[in-house]
């Protein structure tokens, strides 16, 4: 089989079999609403801290397996994080320390 990794990106699936689509409404989690609001603020004109196209590029760069398994807003926050690191708004160290701090709030004893 010819291996072609460049012609069609995984996310660019127009015209392919879609499979079964579940038509169900669902409520958004609080964190999903926060991610949505964060993007609105980050992409506003003053100051413009990232572009919607950066968001899309980051999402489209996910490996196919991750793209399939992550939820809509999980993809968003992955991409927003990358854009903020790239644009110099967050250092990897800051992100790492904050993630550890938040994680420590939820440490539970293993019974």
């Amino acid at each position, binding site marked *: 089989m010819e291996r072609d990794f460049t*012609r069609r990106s995984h996310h660019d699936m127009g015209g392919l079999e879609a499979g079964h689509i579940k038509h169900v409404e669902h409520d958004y989690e609080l964190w999903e609403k926060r991610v949505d609001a964060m993007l609105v603020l980050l992409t506003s004109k003053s100051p413009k801290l990232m572009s919607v*196209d*950066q968001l899309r590029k980051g999402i489209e760069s996910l490996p196919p397996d991750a793209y399939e398994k992550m939820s809509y807003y999980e993809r968003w926050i992955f991409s927003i994080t990358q*854009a903020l690191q790239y644009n110099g708004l967050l250092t990897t160290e800051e992100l790492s320390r904050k993630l550890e701090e938040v994680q420590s709030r939820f440490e539970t004893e293993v019974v």
Partner: protein
Amino acid sequence: MKAVFNPGDAVQVRRGSPPGHIRTPFYVRGCKGRIERIAGEFRNPEELAFGRFDAAKTPLYRVRFQQQDVWPDYNGNSGDTLDVEIFEFWLEPSTADKT
């Protein structure tokens, strides 16, 4: 930036597949269609995607394709069309017959 194409002009979508953020869907690359309208001009999203917020503005067109030209196995009505919005740098002049 002045638009190169005008409504009615025959165009062909380039077959490129560069890495990055591409706004021209894969299924329409290489297809021939006609300019339906000039849809304004916008900063190049493929550059905005790399954080270059001052990217140059470039004309955007609504291009009309015959469904039969897009999908080789299309079995709907022969006159069915598909409109896709495509930036100028993805289009080349075409000598397609008038559709």
